């Protein structure tokens, strides 16, 4: 399978990465090189094979449903580019 220019633009939007028109052909070439490389997986017989979900055979650990962290709002916003009090500031999202 290979991707066309429209697909490159669609993926970029899904990935939330701005791509300018003149970057598209180059990206298309690189993505297609990667897709051509992974194409060889289609020759593997995977019938009846379970997809891997955990590389170490272990039960998922569960924690007690208790509050063991918190009261660190200052820490949470410490690295934010724009804040007001303990809130993150973003462009208007609701009209």
């Amino acid at each position: 399978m290979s991707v066309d220019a429209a697909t490159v633009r669609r993926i970029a939007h899904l990935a939330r990465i701005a791509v300018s028109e003149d970057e598209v052909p180059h990206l298309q070439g690189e993505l297609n090189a990667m897709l051509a490389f992974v194409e060889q997986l289609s020759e593997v017989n995977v019938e009846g094979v379970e997809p891997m979900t955990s590389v170490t055979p272990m039960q998922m650990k569960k924690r007690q449903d208790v509050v063991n962290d918190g009261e660190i709002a200052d820490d949470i916003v410490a690295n934010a580019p724009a804040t007001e009090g303990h809130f993150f500031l973003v462009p208007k999202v609701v009209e």
Partner: protein
Amino acid sequence: MTDLTSLTLAEARKGLADKTFTSLELTDAHLSAIEKARVLNAFVMETPDQARSMAREADAKIAKGDAGPLAGIPLGIKDLFATKGVRTTACSKILGNFVPTYESTITSQLWRDGAVMLGKLNNDEFAMGSANETSCFGPVGNPWRREGSNTTLVPGGSSGGSASAVAALLCMGATATDTGGSIRQPAAFTATVGIKPTYGRCSRWGIVAFASSLDQAGPIARSVRDSAMLLRSMAGHDPKDTTSVDIAVPDYEASIGKSVKGMKIGIPKEYRLDGMPAEIEKLWSEGAAWLKAAGAELVEVSLPHTKYALPAYYIVAPAEASSNLARYDGVRYGLREQGKTIIEQYENTRARGFGAEVRRRVMIGTYVLSAGYYDAYYLRAQKVRTLIKKDFEDCFAKGVNAILTPATPSAAFGIGEKGGADPVEMYLNDIFTVTVNMAGLPGIAVPSGKDAQGLPLGLQLIGRPFEEETLFSLGEVIEQAAGRFTPARWW
């Protein structure tokens, strides 16, 4: 007194215990070496004040007789590990001047055991790369050069700063991470020892995530014994990482010097590639002969799905990365590029903040997870991964204790020499190491010889899950036979 930077970690530990020198002297010697080696670009942040204060604390503890196992030992920390109050960037512009308000589990364990932090080490952006060329701080130089040449070579990646700093004697050991070969390949390129432990052995908490089902941290060190000492402090169960395994951490150092007599070592025929340099082929046979001379038994084994590991990796790893890196949105931390709408702000932030390799992988990951392609790519790759793991399980079920392979298909290459036209060319560096991540197994790279141009080459040993001790015992045999290698100083 000999130059304090030329000691191994084990020798330094003895010198500190015998009061031959102090941690402050040892730390100062390394700080001064770092200053003189800035041309290598191994450190992206030096923390001399913190280092000296930690060294004084260690000296006080040593004097009182309650020193931890790494008391006073100066280390470098890959910039992927969150360090409280010290800028952590994953060498990406998108993290900007991120200063964590918390400490990663692994580094907190190193400080608990008395180690001293010299600074933060360069790496490929978000650990995506095999040459340390994708870092926003620029490439790292390998202390090794081809004989009679002034060309600067890459140290490998993604833990290029870690490997370069350890090889150039700038720190006594370093933390590193390995998603597809990022500990073992740079170790092989710089004649250092690097071990990627079993998935789940070390906590991933506080390490910037790349591909969570493959990421595992480990040390890069000057000797096999040093790597065993470091791993003991780094490993251990952490309730904050649900994939961290609750198994007691053995005293890895005790396995150094243990007999390997009767151990069955597998030589996988699929790792013999067409066009592999004769030197690597020769090194591999030599390594096998050393293990045989130490009493191990060699057997040919087959790992039939080996060739599919790298393509499967380049679906699984980007898919997980695209999901993990979704958090970089310019809202909660790091870089923000303005946009008229929130979507535009995300898109501008991520276009400007991510480098080319990261953008490419996030896009591939997004594509293989998108509606209509998930089954064809991602699901199929996860099935192939099951088959790769089964290859190893079948091999171990036949009584094989460990598998011996070359660590890399070539020695170090020049900056900008590979991957310019086709990204896949760079990816092939990890052809011998990536299988180990796909199967979650432990693997160690040990320096084993040099090529005709005088560049170091390494061998890899792959072990059964949680049998790192076997790797240390076998690695020691190789180190004893091959000797240790130090680059001639040109910086």
